[in-house]
Structure formats: structure tokens, C-alpha cells
């Protein structure tokens, strides 16, 4: 615990000392949470930028997973050695926004640095999550994804299912046919709170919380125990008994169920595409939109994003921020974005990058990769489908996870579980409101 903060502080001090007079170029520290192949891609982007000019140098530093990266950056800020740029996941957004003295809003930094910046070039459904009430972009979108449905085409053929399911009753029918054909389970899901509560709500134009899902203020309260939510979660709990649905863990631990052909359908991030492609060895797979209930809300509306954005922290010289601004321009150029999008399965953050990818024929060669974009941009977002902005949401997601697990296990009914999650979540919202001074 303590040693971690100390280490971060030492690391930051050494990095700063190292970046001292020896280098002519202005150095910008970029703390990120992308491991493995994605991490290599991040390094490639930074190297591309460094090679493109000689005045500035961006140094990417891997800081562990999302929570570790955010915690490290906050600890470094408290120790007065913050990185310039830090990658923060979407559920940390409210915490970052509330930290007014700690962050340097991106729109303001771009203006101060005299860098050309057109917020209209970015996909509204992506930036909507990260803009303040006046429409200003506070952070730079980097890796955004949205949940989609992956299905086992080979299994579908064997079970005599001709079409990918569009609605939940169709999912149930497909699952039962697959089970009759010998597959033990119908479908599973990753990130249950994100997919089955947050995106379920946006997709059906239902609110997760009051005050426009928290966008309009911190005195918000949760509403995800409505009759429609209870119906959906109750149905999943019912399906858990017959393994039409089978729960497999809070994050992406359920993936092996799909890879191993235990479950024939799998709901998870569009960015799981590369993983599914690499692991679906013995079968063909397809990608389609998240299923909806035809009789609930005005479904299908649009889904919301997950993933992370780049935040700029205060505490450095104006020259450093100029470098960061130049880097952001490079990062959002159509070429860099299109490459990132095609390589990772994350959404292209600008319209130009989407069009470039389309003109390169990528979507035709890789069917299903554009499902996420269409799902997000199919309709203009409403108050319920713009995104979420709740304080302490990292902890609240864990509460939702806990209550959902109790529902799947049958120890609580859907109504009880969701009521408890809302009550416990509201308590944390009040705490956040008090801590940040409303």
C-alpha cells in the first residue's frame, strides 16, 4: 500500500530527473494501461509521433491495468510529480471531472497551445461521454468500444439456426436449439454491469440514474430497478437455471466458455474481436448487434461506450502542454486512428478515420467489424443513451456485480437484488457529492 505510493513517487522523480537537461526535445510522459499487443501498438504510435518531428518527444509508460494506472497517476499528482497525459477508463470520468484543480481540460489546452482543434470531427456518441454541460471536450478519446454479440456460426448451422438473433426471444430460441444439438449453454456475457445494465438501458432508452444519468449534476439517484430492468435481469436469472444463460465472471473470464464452444453466444466489447478471432480455432464466428426486447422502451436506441480517454494533468510548463497538444493532433489524424481501429477493434474516434477505413475496404474484408459503429451511431443519442456520469462508479460497479451474482445464484430475486444495488449505490453517490462539494 504505502510502498506502492512511495515507488510511484520515486519512479516519477527518476523519470523527471532523467528527462532533465540531457534532452533537447520537450518530453511528455504518457501513462497508459495497454498491455500485450495493444501496448506495443501504443509504443508504435508514440514512436511515429517522435519520428514525425524533432521538437517534442512522447514517452509512453505502462502502469498496469486501468485501476492501477489511475491510482498511480493520482498518487503521483498528490506527490506533485504527475505525468502529463494519463489514460483513464470511462468509469473514472466523474472522478476526473470533479478534480477541477488537477486536470487541464483538453479543449482549453488545445486553445492555449494555439493548436487547431475541431470537436465536430469526432464521433458525437464517443465524445458525448466526455464533454461538460457546455459541450466542451474535457479529455481526448483514445480507445472506445461498445458491446456486441458474437455467435458461433458453425454451431448455429449444426443446430439449424438460419439467422443471427436480433431480439431476446430469438436469443432464447437459438440457445434452446443449440442445447438440443448438444451444446451445454446458450450464451454468456462479459462485464455484466456494463453490458446487461448500462448498455441494456441505453439500448432501450431507459435511464440508469436521474439528472440525465448524472450529466446534469452530482445529486443524482439510480433508477436501474425499474420494472423493465427487473424483467430483463429476472429473465436472465430464469435462464441461468436452464443454462440458456451461464454466468462466467465479472470481467472477461467468461471468454473461454465461448472459445471452448460451451456457450454458442457471447456478449462483450467490440474490442474483444481480436481475441475471439485468435481463439475461435475450430469454428466460424459472426458478429451482430446486441439483442433487444421489442416491447421495451424505444429499442433499439443506441449503445454507449466503454474504454478509456486521455486526460491531461496540471503541474507542468506551457511548453510541455504545447507538446501534448501537438501529440493529440497527431493521435486523432485519420491515418493513425484508422490503423488503431483496424488493429484493435476499438471504435474510430473521428468520422474521417471511419471513412478512411471504409474506403480501404476493411469492413468488407472483415464482416462484423462495423457492427459496433452502426450500433452506436444508428440513432441520435438521447439523455438516456449519451453515457453515464456517476461518482464512485468503480465501487458502484462492484456493488452491481455482487447483487447480480446473488440474483444469478438464486439467493435474491431480481427485484430485491436491484433494489439493494440501487440503495447501496445511492449511498456512495451521496458520499461522492459530499466529498467533491457537490
Amino acid at each position, binding site marked *: *500500500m*504505502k510502498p*506502492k505510493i512511495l515507488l510511484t513517487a520515486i519512479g516519477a522523480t527518476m523519470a523527471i530527473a532523467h528527462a532533465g537537461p540531457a534532452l533537447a526535445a520537450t518530453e511528455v510522459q504518457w501513462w497508459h494501461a495497454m498491455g500485450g499487443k495493444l501496448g506495443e501498438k501504443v509504443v508504435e504510435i508514440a514512436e511515429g509521433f517522435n519520428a514525425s518531428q524533432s521538437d517534442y518527444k512522447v514517452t509512453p509508460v505502462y502502469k498496469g491495468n486501468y*485501476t492501477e494506472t*489511475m*491510482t498511480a497517476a*493520482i498518487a503521483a*499528482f*498528490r506527490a506533485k510529480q504527475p505525468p502529463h497525459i494519463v489514460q483513464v477508463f470511462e468509469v473514472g470520468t466523474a*472522478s476526473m471531472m*470533479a*478534480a*477541477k*484543480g*488537477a486536470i487541464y481540460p483538453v479543449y482549453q489546452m488545445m486553445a492555449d497551445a494555439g493548436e487547431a482543434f475541431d470537436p465536430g470531427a469526432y464521433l458525437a456518441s464517443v465524445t458525448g461521454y466526455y464533454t461538460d454541460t457546455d459541450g466542451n471536450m474535457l479529455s481526448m478519446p483514445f480507445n472506445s468500444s461498445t458491446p456486441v454479440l458474437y455467435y458461433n456460426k458453425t454451431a448455429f448451422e449444426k443446430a439449424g439456426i438460419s439467422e443471427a438473433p436480433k431480439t431476446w426471444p430469438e436469443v432464447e430460441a437459438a440457445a434452446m436449439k443449440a442445447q438440443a444439438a448438444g451444446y451445454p449453454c446458450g450464451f454468456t456475457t462479459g462485464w455484466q454491469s456494463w453490458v446487461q445494465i448500462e448498455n441494456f438501458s441505453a439500448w432501450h432508452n431507459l435511464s440508469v440514474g436521474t439528472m440525465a444519468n448524472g450529466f446534469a449534476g452530482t445529486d443524482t439517484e439510480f433508477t436501474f430497478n425499474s420494472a423493465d430492468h427487473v424483467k430483463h435481469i429476472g429473465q436472465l436469472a430464469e435462464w441461468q437455471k436452464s443454462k440458456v444463460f451461464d*454466468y*462466467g*465472471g*465479472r470481467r472477461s*473470464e467468461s471468454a*473461454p*466458455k465461448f472459445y*471452448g464452444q*460451451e456457450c454458442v453466444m457471447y456478449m462483450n466489447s467490440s474490442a474483444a474481436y481480436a481475441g475471439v478471432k485468435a481463439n475461435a480455432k475450430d469454428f466460424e464466428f459472426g458478429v451482430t448487434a446486441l439483442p433487444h426486447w421489442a416491447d421495451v422502451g424505444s429499442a433499439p436506441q443506441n449503445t454507449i461506450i466503454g474504454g478509456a480517454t486521455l486526460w491531461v494533468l496540471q503541474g507542468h510548463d506551457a511548453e510541455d502542454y504545447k507538446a501534448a497538444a501537438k501529440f493529440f493532433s497527431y493521435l486523432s489524424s485519420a491515418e493513425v486512428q484508422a490503423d488503431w481501429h483496424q488493429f484493435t477493434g476499438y471504435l474510430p474516434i473521428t468520422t474521417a478515420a471511419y471513412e478512411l477505413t471504409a474506403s480501404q475496404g476493411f469492413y468488407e474484408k472483415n464482416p462484423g467489424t462495423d457492427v459496433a459503429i452502426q450500433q452506436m451511431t444508428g440513432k441520435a443519442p438521447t439523455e438516456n443513451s449519451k453515457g453515464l456520469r456517476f461518482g*464512485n462508479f*468503480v*465501487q458502484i460497479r*462492484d456493488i452491481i*456485480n*455482487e*447483487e447480480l*451474482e*446473488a440474483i*444469478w*445464484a438464486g*439467493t435474491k430475486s431480481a427485484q430485491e437484488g436491484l433494489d439493494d444495488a440501487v440503495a*447501496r449505490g445511492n*449511498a456512495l453517490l451521496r*458520499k461522492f457529492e*459530499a*466529498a*467533491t*462539494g457537490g
Partner: protein
Amino acid sequence: MEKRVVFSKLGLPILLVAPQIVITLVFFIWPASQALYQSLLLEDAFGLRSQFVWLDNFIALFSDPHYLDSFARTVVFSAATAGLSLGVALFLAAMADRVLKGATAYRTLIVWPYAVAPAVAGVLWFFMFNPSIGVLAYLLKWLGYDWNHYLDGTDAMMLVILAASWKQVSYNFLFFLAGLQAIPRSLVEAAAIDGARPFKRFWTIIFPLLSPTAFFLLVVNIVYAFFDTFGIVHATTSGGPAQSTTILVYKVFSDGFIGLDLGGSAAQSVVLMAVVITLTVFQFRYIERKVAY
């Protein structure tokens, strides 16, 4: 009359105890007092705004039924972890004490797991018991038990207990073995001549003579189970399903370092500290009486 050796001046003794006192101050008293102070604050993650809220954090904790539940879970977890790791280690040590051939290799192998970091140990067990791809889960399924720690709280609890005690067995084993080897052979042999069977010899001679070691290990293991196991829980179950493995120290970790609720987390660590101090005092006061040095 008792002969006492007294330092003639005050300087030297102070110098001699100073390093220990400094270490205690810097690494225990100072952080502990910081935690105590922090537990009275309500602060945002970045430390930009901070309010003194007296005991609000504690009141919030104790009015939360889930927090009270996690006390009971922690007791179950700690007792099972300490019991299992002590029991297995004692058994292995008693066996190792009689091994003549290859004793070093045997000992080395048993000590190995201690070098494994808690998080790594957690991941190891996590994979072995993974309901979809785990070897042991597969074996259990074959034996007719449907293992699923994602849904079944009891399974999850068993998993974290196994992972947590596995690591500790090595440590306990070393101490037990040393303790066993310090017991004079003549006592055991005399008992054998008197006709005492191995189990009787163990229970009436060896175990009482081993009690100082056992007592020391009991204290160490309880402290370990209370404080040092959040890494294992984090890597295996993240406290789930539905809080069934959320023990006190994991909640401290997840609220503080994942949730960034520093005040609430500090309040929990103060409570945890009080619990462990009480337990330790209790152990020294009551259990130690039964220990024969």
C-alpha cells in the same frame, strides 16, 4: 541476592535501542497515526478538498450490514486458513522429521511455495479451479461435483482458503521442523520404552514441547490471514460472488486502491488494526498460559 548489570551512563543504552525505536516509529507508529487521522477525513481522490468529519466514516461502516457480515466471513476465513496451514504443516513436519533419505530435497520442495508472491499464488489456483478450463475443476466434475466459484459462494470461499493456506504451509513447516528437531530424542525414546504408541507419544510429549512454536505460529498465521491475503482474494475472486469472499482486508484494499475512497478505507484499516491488536492480546493473555516454555 540478584545480581544486576546496570549501564553507568544513559548515552550507550539509548544509542543501542535507538535503531529499533526509530524503525518502529517510522514504519509502524507514523503510518498508523496517519491512518488514524485519515479515517476522520472525507477527501476526494486527488486530495484537493478535505473535510474533517469526525466519526462519520466509522458510523457509515457500522451501519452497513454488509460490513458487519464481512466480520463473520473474516473469522471463518482466518480460522480456516490458520487451521489448515498449521495442521498440514505440522503433519508434514512430523513426517519429515522421520525421513532419513533425501530429507534435504523433500524439505526444499516444501519450502518453495513460500517464495511465490500472493498474487501469483492466487492466479495459479484460479487457473486450476477455473470452471471452464481448470484441471481440478474438471477432475471434480468427473467425480460428480459441479465446481463453480463464479456462482457458488462456498466454492469461492474454499478456493481462497486453499490458495491462502497453501503458501503459508511452507513457512509453518520450517518452524515446526526446527521445533521438532530441538526435542531431545531421549524423552521420546523413554516414552517408547514405557510402551507409548506413536500417536500417544506425539500427543503427550512432542506436542506440549512444541507448544511455544505452535503458539508463535498461531499468532503469525492469524496476522497473516487478517492482513496479508488481499492479493490472493484480488487475483482469484475479487471478493465475489456476491461478497462471499469479501474479507475485511480485501475491502480495505478495494475501497482504498480501486475505489479511491481513502477516508472509508482508512477507517476500515483502523478497525482491522484494533481487531488484530485485541486478538493478539487475547492470545497472549489466555492461550499463552497453556504454553510450556
